[in-house]
């Protein structure tokens, strides 16, 4: 009865890709709205986080049913497991996007005397778009079932943690020199950290793409997952 199972699997695959696109869009919006101090968009991201969580739950439920009803093996088992493992990662990426949105809201409501650090905002912006790019790439690799592209996406994600080190230095320096930058500086640090985590999670998904294709469990960017 392959045919019915194939339909179920294709449906699961579509649901996963849809959710992936939704998360990628949310991450992108979260970063852009942080840079633009766009509280409305940030508020929207915050309010709609549950949609991502609901999708995760629906996909998980579907995976459990597929395993119980069809007992997939070999490539089909790996496909189902890849989705089960990656869907939780996608959900957490959504959570980090929501956290960035919450920082955006906080930054906007802050004391008027606080000083922004333009150079850091620029760096975060670059880091953000590099991360969005890595997330897009990893999803493309998933859709194309291309492990090599997945590895490339992980390499791009790895570079992002280098910029976080630079941001940390600049922010700490500014904080030492001028106490009025401390409040905004603290937010820059956590937001850079959130973006870095999102990039790490793109790597996690890339690892599952490699597993799906090859059956091997790999670690693509060992030692890169410090928060900031």
């Amino acid at each position, binding site marked *: *009865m*392959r*045919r*019915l*199972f194939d339909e179920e699997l294709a449906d699961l695959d579509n649901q996963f890709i849809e959710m992936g696109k939704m998360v990628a869009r949310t991450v992108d919006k979260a970063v852009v709205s942080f840079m633009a101090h766009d509280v409305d968009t940030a508020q929207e991201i915050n309010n709609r986080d*549950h949609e991502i*969580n609901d999708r995760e739950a629906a996909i998980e439920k579907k995976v*459990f*049913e597929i395993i*119980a*009803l*069809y*007992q997939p093996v070999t490539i089909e088992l790996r496909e189902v497991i890849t989705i089960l493992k990656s869907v939780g990662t996608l959900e957490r990426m959504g959570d980090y996007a929501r956290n960035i949105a919450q920082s955006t809201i906080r930054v906007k409501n802050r004391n008027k005397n606080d000083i922004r650090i333009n150079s850091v905002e620029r760096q975060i912006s670059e880091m953000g778009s590099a991360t969005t790019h890595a997330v897009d790439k990893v999803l493309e690799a998933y859709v194309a079932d291309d492990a090599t592209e997945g590895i490339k996406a992980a390499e791009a994600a790895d570079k992002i943690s280098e910029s976080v080190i630079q941001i940390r230095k600049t922010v700490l320096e500014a904080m030492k020199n001028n106490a009025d930058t401390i409040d905004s500086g603290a937010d820059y640090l956590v937001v850079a950290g959130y973006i870095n985590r999102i990039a790490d999670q793109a790597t996690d998904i890339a690892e599952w793409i490699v597993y799906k294709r090859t059956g091997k469990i790999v670690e693509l960017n060992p030692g890169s997952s410090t928060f900031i």
Partner: protein
Amino acid sequence: MVSRNKIVESIKNEVEIEKYVINLSSKHQRAIETKDLTISYNGKKNALNKTNLAFETNKITSLIGASGSGKSTFLRSLNLIHGENTLIGGQILYHGVNINDPSIDKFEVRRRIGMVFQRPNPFAKSIYNNITFALTQRAKYTKNQLDEIVESSLKQAALWDQVKDELNKSALSLSGGQQQRLVIARALALKPDILLLDEPASALDPKSTMQVEETMVNLKKDYTIIVVTHNMQQAARVSDYTAFFHMGNVIEYDLTRKIFTRPKVKLTSDYVAGNFG
């Protein structure tokens, strides 16, 4: 989102239940339904105790359970096949009529509710005559009409393409899976609306099993199918609903995906998982 308190509450209030039968709502059309159906042989202990099951139209329902659980007894009773000294109490409602009644024409019932058995049992006749035999016993048909019925029945049973050029060949020369599909075609030729299948694939190899399962899934748009199976995975793969029988009782009847992911009765869970006894 379910609140935390509600989850805690529902875990606390969880009690082990002994029986669960899904209640088909009025929007689910019922093809056939039993009310307090009880069956005993030779006045001995009941083979089936007061069974109330309703089957949804155009769905596949699997009946599972160990040997002697009453599932095959139940299935046969729907087709009014039971030996002498069999006592059947309760009702079998088909289109609102109780067919468990001596005044009912059993042959008419068996035409509308077709049955396929475990071992393919084609007649020792040609493929063509296997399908037309029952028809021509009861009424007159023109050659054209018969040709049409043969073609459409074989197509529905997904056998036409394989046998269309050799309809005069003996049915016994077909493979097991083909014979079983021929028997299904034979039942379909009588234009039933319910098909009862008693372990239709248990005598077949995996490939033929797959073909029969595929045929079943394709048939459900036009028929209601009730299938007895010992193969748990078959029940999981093909059916919309599953009923679990144990010692003459229906222990649990629910959507198949629920039976296989979170059954409500522990006995069902044990049986489906293979931890029985």
